[in-house]
């Protein structure tokens, strides 16, 4: 299994976790960050099925969600499910690093959340 290739940023002064990168902390304006990796499983905070996809996606629909990792990193990703029927807010999901789209014949990798409840 491929490792989750994202870096989050914890403010060295106030501890706020940022993802994506900011040059200054959203809370205290400090410029010093510790790079952290998202840890453990994640909690699904919200989700939707997108039926009108943008150019570049050759499929009927796509489920997208935002999830929070055990160490507070929050990130968007695709949800690995066939419909939203089995999904609920707050459910546990396993983060995987997988192809999320193709561009110029190349796979683009990103977060895919797999429901595990």
């Amino acid at each position, binding site marked *: 299994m491929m490792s989750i290739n*994202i870096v989050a940023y914890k403010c060295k002064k106030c501890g706020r976790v*940022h*993802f*994506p990168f900011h040059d200054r902390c*959203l809370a205290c304006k400090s410029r010093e960050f510790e790079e952290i990796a998202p840890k453990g499983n994640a909690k699904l*905070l*919200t*989700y*939707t*099925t*997108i*039926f*009108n*996809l*943008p*150019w*570049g*996606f050759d499929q009927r629909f*796509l489920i*997208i*969600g*935002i999830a929070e990792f055990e160490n507070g990193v*929050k*990130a*968007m*990703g*695709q949800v690995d499910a066939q419909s*939203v029927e089995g999904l609920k*807010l707050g459910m546990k999901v396993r983060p995987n690093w997988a192809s*999320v*789209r193709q561009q110029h014949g190349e796979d*683009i990798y*990103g*977060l895919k959340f797999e429901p595990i409840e």
Partner: protein
Amino acid sequence: MRDVAIIGVGMIPFGRRDEDSLMDLLAYASLKALDDAGLGDKSVNAVYVGNMGGGIIQHQTAIASSLVDRLSLLPAAAETVENGPASGGSAVKNGLLAVASGYYDYVLVVGGEKMREVTGWKATDFVSTMTHPEVEYPYGVTLPGMAGMFTRLYMEKYGVTREHLTAVAIKNQDMGALNPYAHVEMSISREGILDSPHSVVNNPPVADPLHLYDACPVSDGAAAVILCPLETAKKTGKPPVLIAGFGQATDTHTLQERDDPTDLKAVSLAAKQAFEMAKLKPADIHVAELHDAFTILEIAESEHVGFFKKGEGAIAALAGKTKLGGQIPINVSGGLKARGHPVGATGVAQVVEITFQLRHELPKNRQVKGAENGLTVNFGGFGNNVLAFVLRRVQQ
């Protein structure tokens, strides 16, 4: 700082306008505003063009330079203002500040977009370019997708249901059916979109829990206003409309970094600033144009600007409090929902609509009787850049 008034407005019918180029749309709306202001063959000092997609969709840049040439407004100062779906509002703001500062006396502000030139796939991709390029866009998220995720949270937190959303859709389509500038001049019924077997076909999901009739159409269109100092405006024939208040605020680029993603902080702040500048309260507003790119946004914004408490906007909409004749008529134009949402045009179109209202020149079935104060909210990104204007009718 000088008081700034609107002395001319112009708009062209929104919709699918295959026969017109982006420059045609901008020029037609501008000429109507110039004529409405009584400027005839006179010029203006400066031109601000609100446009989001010319560089991407039409493969054309420096649009304002082209427009002043086409309109023979040379050597007026000119620039294009790009601020996503709030480009129109930002263009109005630039015009406002330019006149208020005393630097320019007459300014043309025009917002326009031509989105139907490309396929739905391409238009959706174009709008998605405002999402975060690294942590959102690659996943295929769209603006309806953002709105779907927001709606799911809003429903969970405040008990909003599809019935509430449908009330907004029906109201705005009913009003759009009366507005000759609207893209979708068509009423819809509750049975047609919610309560019957046909509704499954008529109103499919676009980004659950949002359905087709919760979303605005993709449109072509343009709208324009002419601004000048209030003292000059008082000498013209029409009731001057004062830009009494203005506010703008930003929020995090990504939804995930907001402590409470249901809290549209930039909407609250922009409206608060506009009310403070105008020395008015939400209860003083007689008519509002809110940015209902999705029905949920009309409900959420009606709460965030202070018309209703959090969680009560949906109930108010269902009870008819936001209809013409209700406590606070919202989107009497049909809103983005029915008028359409040519992204760069919307912020200007909202100001044009409120100007029509405050001049009392609309037909009875669309006019808010005796309206003196109006509010607009132009919502950029997914609430990460929001502008609000309070407009006031000035007695001559």
